[in-house]
Every structure is written in C-alpha cells, then in structure tokens.
C-alpha cells in the first residue's frame, strides 16, 4: 500500500522482572481496518495493548523495546489520557461507567459541553455551567453513528447489560479525533442479538474510517468483522493472516498449538484408577466473572483431572463452588456421601482441600507467620495441633507441634524462608504458593482442588510445584482436580482434561488429543459454531 498506515508497531518486546512476555511483535493497521487480535490468556495481548496506551505499569517495570508509530510518527504516551488525546480509545472488559448517570452524561463524562458565565473569571473554567441540550445532541450523534438503539436519558443502573456496553463505546466515538478504537472482549457480556448489533456498528465505524483492534475469543465474530487477524502465543506473533484466507479451525490451531513431545514423554503408560471418587451433577456456581452454569463430571480415585478453558468461562468457579466459597447449586458426591454446598467447613471436613487461585486474597494470611498459614485449616477443621486442657474445656494451640509440622513441610517443599515464624507476605510468589500447597497437604485430603498453581511464579518454582503435585498423587494416592489456564501444564500432568466454555463443559479429552481439538473446545463455537464442532463435542461428552 502506498499510504502510511495509521498504526505501526515495530519489534515490540517487553520483560517483567526478567520474565519475557513479548518478543519482536510487529504489525500494521490501515485506516478503517479492523484487526482481530487473538491468543490464549497470557499470550501477551493485554501487555501489547498496555504498551500502546502507555499504561503506567509499563513504565514502572522498565519500559519496552521497539517503536509505536501513529500516522507514521513515533509516539510515546506517558499515560492513557495522552493516548486518548492522540485519538486512541479503549473499551474495557469491565464497565467503567458512573452508575447513577444517564447515557448522555456517561458518554460525555469529563468532556461536557459548557457555557460561559462571569464567575469563571474568578474561580476558573470548572464553574462553567453544563449545556444540557448540546450534550444530548452530541450523545445522540454518537449513538446514531454506532447505529444502536439507546435512550440517551436512561440511567446506567436501569440499562440492560448490552446497552451499558453500547454506552461505553459511544463514549469513545464522541471524541472528535477518534482514529483507533481498541475493543477488549466487548461481546463477552452480550446476548447473541446484541452482539450482532454491535458487530454491525463496528463495520459502520470502519466504513467511516475509524480503525479498530478487536480482541475476542469468539472466533466466529472475528471472522465476521475483521479484515485481518494477528495470532499471539507466548508473546510472539505466530501468524498474521487475511481473514478470508483462513478458518476458525486453523486459527484455533495457531492459538494453542505447541510441540508436545516433551510433555507426552513424561507420561507413564497406562494408569489404572479406582472407582469414581467425585461425582458432580448439574453444578452451577455464582462466582463473579467465573460463572458456572451447568457442569457434570466424574473424577476417579487416584486420577489427576484437569480443568482448562479461557479466563472468565467458569473453570475457576467449579473448585470454588464445590468448596463452598461461592453460592452454588446442583449435586456433588464424594464417594457415596453427598456434599452440602455453600458450607466451606463441610467440604473441608468431608476430606477435600483447596488451593485457591487468589493466593494473596484467599490463600494466605499475609500478616501472620508461615506456620499459622500451613496449619490453620487443619487446626480449625480437624482439631489438629490442639492440646485439650481442663478436660477438653480449653482447646489450647500447641505451638510446638505446629512448629515441628511446619518445619517438615518447609523442608519437604523447599520453602525458602528464614524460619517458620517469618510472615508470609515476605516470601516470593513461588514460595507463597508452596505454603498454600502445604496448607492443603496438612489437611491430608482425599481430594485436592488446585487452581492456577503456577500463576505468577518463576520457571523453577513451577516445575517444583507440578512435581510436588505429581508426587503427592503417586505416593499418597491423593486424587487431584487441577484448574489451569495453561493448557500445556494440564497436558503434562493430567490424566484427563475437561474444557470449560461459557459455564459448561464443552468436552473432556485425553491429554494426548491433538492440540487443535482443545483449541476448538475452548473457543466457544456455541451459537455461531458449525455443525461439525457440535458433533465433535457430543463425542467427547460421552467418552
């Protein structure tokens, strides 16, 4: 093409604390083009966008490599407001709307039309009065441009979810110099019909010369609206392709495809499992952002069962729900015994333990010593490390037994700390994760739920954590249900892997299944999928 592209990102690279998350990413975007950006969680999509917007986190962690060129000129944004000034808008996954304001007020937030009055001379511009009729005009214009049906006077709290999303997008459109719009999973919360309206709106905007970067895991939508796609994996560009020259299946393969020899090697031949230990029937869990709608599966005694899927699809909700941490319903059996949901104590007493994905929020007592962290759950649910005094009237904490037990775990898991009295907050992420594991092991569970065990820890610690899990499984026969966003990790350790999509299990595969199959299951072909995939899914379900 002859003209300069609107946006050119050249050889972008980024490291977080020695951890490479982006390497040599280059692409261009023409005026009026829509680029589909796809990749698994952690593939580097958000880091790339953070760099484009000059998010402070990038600068604080040592900047980035490469160049960003807008209209052929290099730009460096100090913060997102700069990017906005330069004509780049961002529609977030989470809503950032003022709840009690009308659509108009939200669309024009901090860009209101105002009228002059004499007090401005004394107290400054902020005492200009709002020009409501003009504001409404502008809002209506933005809404019309988007081509949606939205009442400009409606209050956000009264809006259906779809309209909130439209409001958010209209806000970006109203900016006069808007050239480039980044839409991060805008359809995730929308109903089918609303998503279609939005996609139409996007095409209309593109026709008016606004370029867009569209991030979505619904590949069919990408196929519908994008001119070209960029596939990221492990921080690298795997493929750049014209949409009409590719297919959903091909993209899915690019996204998740990896060489799997190494993982396959470590697998022993045939493993034999006992009776089903955990039976889950029609489970639903109300976990914000990870809603589980209807999930059924069995886990056999001695098995390592993996649960995978993209973020926000509900894979994390399963463990949290069974352990009683979020409102849940359906039927769950451990062995023959039914589990009462919504009661963490019951789930723990029944012989299950949980390593939470939210290490700092749920997993640890950051301000307390490591010892406490390790033994607390066992102490409270099983009266372990307790000495009965006065004929059982007083349940005294046995600090000696606690110290001895924690020392064992600290040694066994190689937790690097000065002593068991050190506060958990002072440990590194990997060691904190080991403390969380130790806490679960101390309960001596029959069934162990582990969620995202390697998130945010370095490679060495990752290996150790996975090895520990495997060893616990082999040596003590502990059945493990492991939830992870990293497919490779699941395939390296699990005996079977269930993939969760939109709150339902879209299929259960053996770890040796071709990677494309996993990709397709993850990428929600629901609704806009083709018949072939539906057929695939049926097969796996009835495995």
């Amino acid at each position, binding site marked *: 093409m002859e003209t300069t592209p609107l946006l050119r990102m050249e050889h972008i690279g980024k490291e977080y604390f020695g951890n490479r998350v982006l390497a040599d990413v280059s692409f261009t975007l023409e005026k009026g083009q829509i680029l589909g950006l796809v990749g698994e969680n952690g593939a580097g999509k958000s880091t790339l966008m953070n760099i484009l917007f000059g998010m402070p986190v990038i600068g604080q962690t040592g900047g980035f490599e490469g160049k960003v060129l807008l209209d052929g000129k290099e730009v460096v944004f100090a913060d997102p407001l700069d990017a906005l000034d330069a004509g780049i808008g961002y529609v977030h996954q989470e809503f950032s*709307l*003022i709840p*009690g304001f009308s659509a108009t007020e939200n669309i024009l*937030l*901090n860009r209101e039309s105002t009228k002059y009055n004499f007090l401005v001379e004394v107290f400054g511009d*902020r005492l*200009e*009065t709002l020009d409501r009729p003009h504001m409404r005009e502008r809002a209506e214009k933005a809404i019309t441009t988007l081509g949606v049906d939205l009442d400009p006077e409606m209050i956000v709290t009264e809006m259906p979810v779809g309209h909130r999303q439209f409001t958010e997008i209209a806000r970006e459109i109203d900016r006069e110099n808007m050239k480039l719009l980044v839409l991060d999973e805008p359809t995730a919360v929308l109903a089918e019909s609303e998503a279609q309206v939005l996609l139409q709106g996007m095409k209309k905007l593109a026709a008016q010369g606004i370029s867009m970067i569209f991030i979505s895991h619904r590949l069919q939508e990408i196929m519908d609206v994008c001119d070209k796609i960029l596939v990221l994996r492990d921080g690298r560009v795997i493929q750049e392709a014209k949409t009409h020259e590719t297919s959903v299946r091909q993209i899915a393969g690019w996204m998740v495809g990896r060489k799997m020899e190494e993982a396959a090697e470590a697998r022993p031949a045939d493993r034999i499992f006992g009776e089903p230990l955990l039976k889950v029937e029609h489970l639903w869990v109300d976990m914000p952002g990870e809603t589980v709608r209807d999930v059924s599966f069995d886990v056999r005694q001695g098995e390592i069962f993996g649960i995978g899927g993209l973020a926000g699809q509900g894979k994390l909700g399963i463990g949290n729900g069974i352990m009683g941490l979020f409102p849940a319903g359906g039927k769950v059996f451990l062995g023959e015994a039914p589990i009462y949901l919504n009661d963490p104590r019951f789930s723990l007493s029944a012989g299950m333990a949980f390593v939470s994905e939210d290490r700092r929020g749920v997993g640890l007592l950051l301000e307390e010593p490591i010892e406490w962290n390790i033994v607390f759950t066992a102490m409270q649910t099983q009266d372990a490390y307790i000495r009965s005094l006065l004929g059982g009237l007083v349940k005294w904490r046995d600090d000696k037994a606690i110290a001895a037990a924690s020392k064992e775990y600290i040694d066994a898991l190689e937790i690097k700390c000065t002593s068991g009295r050190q506060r958990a907050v002072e440990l590194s992420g990997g060691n904190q994760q080991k403390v969380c594991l130790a806490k679960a092991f101390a309960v001596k569970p029959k069934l162990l739920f582990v969620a995202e065990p390697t998130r945010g820890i370095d490679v060495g610690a990752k290996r150790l954590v996975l090895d520990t899990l495997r060893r616990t499984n082999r040596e003590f026969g502990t059945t493990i249900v492991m939830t992870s966003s990293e497919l490779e990790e699941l395939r390296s350790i699990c005996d079977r892997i269930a993939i969760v999509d939109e709150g339902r299990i879209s299929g259960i595969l053996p770890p040796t299944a071709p990677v494309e199959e996993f990709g397709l299951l993850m990428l929600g072909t629901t609704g806009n999928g083709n018949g072939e995939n539906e057929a695939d899914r049926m097969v796996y379900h009835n495995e």
Partner: protein
Amino acid sequence: MKAYTTKEKIQHLLISNAVPIIFILMSAIAIPLSGFSPTYLVQEMLIRLARNSFLVLSLIIPILAGMGLNFGMVLGAMAGQVGLILVSDWAVVGIRGLLLAAMIATPIAIALGYVCGAVLNRAKGREMVTSYILGFFVNGLYQLAVLYAFGKVIPISNSELVLSRGFGIRNAINLAGMRHALDYLVPLKIGNLNVPVGTYLTIGLFCLFIVWFRRTKLGQDMRAIGQDMHVAGAAGIPVEKTRIIAIIISTVLACYGQIIFLQNIGTLNTYNSHDQAGMFAIAALLIGGATVSKATIPNVFLGVILFHMMFVVSPMAGKQLMGQAQIGEYFRVFISYGIIAISLALHAWKRQKDRERARRSLRGEA
C-alpha cells in the same frame, strides 16, 4: 423497566421517607402534650429556620462528592468564631461587623478546609469517622489558640473579652453589637412576629447557589466522583483535588453558617458553641430524610423544622407525660444521636445489600 402500580409507588414513598414521617407523627403527639400555643411554635420555627438552615445547607456539597456527612464542618464553625471574637474586640458593629468577621474567617476556613480535605484523601472509605476525630483534634488546637494565644500573641484590647488572668478569651462573649444585624437588615413585622428577612434572603441566595452549582462542570465532576471515584479518575477528572474543593466549600459555608447562627443567638460561648453545631446540623439533615449519599434542599428545611420542633416541645411534653422536664431533655439528646446511628447503619446496610445485588446482576441467568 416495568411500570409501578400506584400501591407500589406509595409504598416506596413511605419507605424512602420513613424517618421524616415518624418525626411528623411524633411531633403530632408531642405538640398537644406540650401545651405550647401555635403562634409561639410558628414564631419559634421561623427563628430557628433562620438560625440553623445555613449550617445544615453547608453539609450538602460533600455529600454530593460522595464524602458522606462532613463532621469536619465544626472546623468552619471555629473559624467563624475566631472572626467574631476579633471583630468584637475591634468593636465593629452591625452588618459591617458581620461582614468583617466573615472576611477574617474565610482564609482561616479555607486553610482548615484544605487540611481537612487533604487528611480525608488519606482516609478514603472512612471519611466520616476521620473527619469526626479531626473535629476533636482541631478543637484542641482552637482551644490552645483562644485560651492561650489570644491576649498574648494576638493582642486583645477589650478587657471584657479577656479572662481575669490577662490572656485567653472569656467563656461567653456578648455579641450585642451584631445581634440580629443580618436578621433584621430588612425590617418586617407581621403582627407580633419579627421576621428575619435578611437571613432568609441570604439562605435563599445560598439555595440558588447550590442549585446552580449542581449544574456547573465542577458540580457534575463531584457527582461523578461521588458515585465512582475510579471511573471518574480514569476519565481524567482530578479526584483528590475535587474532593478537597468540596470540603473547602463546605468548611467556608459552615463558617458563614456559624456567624449567622451566632448573630441570631447574640452570645458566643467561646468553648461550646461550635461543639454541637456539627451534631445538630447532621441530625437535622438526616431527620429531613437525607442519607449519607443523598441530600436535597427540601431535606434541609424539613429537617430543621422537624428537629427543632422536637427540640422545643420535648422537655414540656416530657414534663406533662412523666412529670419531669429532664426526661424530655434527655430524650431529645437520645433522638439526635440515635437518628444519626440509625441512618448511618441503614446506609451501610443498604450499601452492603447493593453490592450483593450488583454482583448478582453480573451473574447472568444461571
């Protein structure tokens, strides 16, 4: 959204105005018991509206900015009193005295408001308890200044103001020279009733100011911050600065409010007058139907009338009912504190409920 039936509408109206309705009922019982004549009560209410409304109005703007009830308004009251003390010393009388007092007090109020705002920015999420303690703390500094610095560091020539030991201000200061200077600036007498027209005009002007202020860009920014600080910040609104401005405005207005209050009363209790200004203003506002997150001008006037109606009649009602006026006096103290406790608890409870509901709305259909 579905349309509400008339019954639902009435129910909603009753629930959302439960506090004022209860107080109206209580007054309806207590007024006949007290045996006060209607004329007396009307006159009393007219006076008290003039006396207190401005102070109560000064609370509205921080509520708009989501900072809750500004217990720190006593800071403004103290500033106003410093102004009045100095003006009494200089023997400037009448409306000129009041204006001068306001002029002296304004920079002090601005400075205190700035400090208060900055402190509250460090205590986001617990503004109320912090501003409350800040009120006590600054009260200590105020006493330090008035009790020790006045007459020593700051020269006070009028010996009537100074304690017998030679420095420090006396417990009570007679503001005879300024008494009713604003109230009766525009003289009007209806029958036996002296109507404080001047003060009403001032209050009216102030209400117009609030209405206008809500429509300015700054007012809009405050509303946005009040509802969601993070979203407002992300949209480029300077959150911390705006919050400080809100508190400064409130403090300065509370300072004027205290001056108006005292010119009506006519005596300044150096060490007590400001103490209860905050509590009474807040109780009145809440009784008028306002909440920690929403307050309107009608809330102010309704609240002042209801609160002070109860204030006036309860000792007499208590005497008639229990044979002891003391009971009624304690009763009104109990009501002032109790109503604040209940309003705060209801608000916190509602917020907890709302959070749960918001979470559920994100759930989608399970």
